[in-house]
């Protein structure tokens, strides 16, 4: 599976695995599945990583 783009279903916060997210401390290439298990959306706080939606289909399902 290549690097994906994920979207918070509540507040539209976007995470692009290829770019990472400096503010969140995730370097380029960090997969969403590698985030801490209790990680929640940094903007709304109400959706955890398992609920993020993959841009262009496929919900995140990998077991962590």
């Amino acid at each position, binding site marked *: 599976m290549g690097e994906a783009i994920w979207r918070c279903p509540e507040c539209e916060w976007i995470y692009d695995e290829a770019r990472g997210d400096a503010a969140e*401390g995730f370097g380029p290439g960090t997969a969403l599945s590698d985030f801490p298990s209790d990680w929640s959306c940094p903007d709304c706080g109400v959706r955890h990583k398992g609920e993020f939606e993959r841009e262009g289909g496929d919900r995140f399902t990998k077991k962590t």
Partner: protein
Amino acid sequence: MKTFTLERAGAAPIQYTDKKRWLWLASLALPALPLGAIAATLATGSEWFLLAPLVFFYGIVPILDALVGEDTDNPPEELVPQLSADRFYRYLTYATVPLYFVTLIAAAWFVGTQAVSAWGILAVALAVGFYSGSAITVGHELGHKKEKLERWLAKIVLAVPAYGHFWVEHNRGHHRDVATPEDPASSRFGENIYAFARREMPGALRRAWTLEKERLARAGKSAWSRENEILHSWAIAAALRVVFVVAFGPVLIPFLLVHDFLAWWSLTSANYIEHYGLLRRKGPDGKYENPKPHHSWNSNHVVSNLISFHLERHSDHHAHPTRRYQALRHFEELPQLPGGYSLMFLLAYLPPLWFRVMNPRVMQVVGGDLERVNFGKVAA
């Protein structure tokens, strides 16, 4: 009165007039009230005026809430983008920010340079402190937004009550853990507000620091890095307080201690009533269910909502934390408080009365299911 309209092909346009639009200007009166009280004392020489802001919040607002009543008006969902994009509403929140600073500076000047009795100093510390607590409501509204400017304004205004960790703690901690025993900012069934405060105040500080430390550690940075969002606001708060003591003398030290504590206490009061006794269930995967509308207490009382940026429509806020205050909605069949925040704060300060009013309501909301009541035990 402005009407928002959405034209639709082949159907009647959707329209919505926000009846509260101009009434939101009341939020500007809030930081100005203690300023007025100081001015009245200077003009008349009577220190009794210094208590007027507290009399207003605890005495007048509950009466106005009862007289004006409730408002269940909602904007149609289709018009929420227009309503949210209308900059009038956000400019109001921005405008309150300097007002909170002006009020605190005026109070510091008043205490430090005028002939005020010890009782007068205490009164102004209590009144201004309590109202500086509503700066946290402004910081709350701004801190939930995605725009950089609004987030910075949140950090700046949180320097007034010296509560800069709130932004991190609330957005990333409270919203994640709300209505669970793990949340220091959700009160438990049978827990009185004084016990709650002893758990909430240090618990919030600890959680905020931990969350920020973890975020910075992921980027290989120290918790004491300049990128620590909590330190930004604390630095402004500390600088302000040093300037006050240097400029106006050591009398500012007890004044600021009481002022800051009262500001924190007013947040504690709000936190106490917002989720009292309500519990999210744990699923088979060991994770709590998502926060649902029935995990918050709500009130539609017009007056107390106008001075709190719709904070009392709390369920919708937790369901959609980034939604702007003017677009927050009322829903039927949600846990409802019998009064606005002013009245409920008063009840909370008298625990036997609070339990008498609220405990049956908790039981009613959960339909007698004790598995849905937050007793403070961490579910297996």
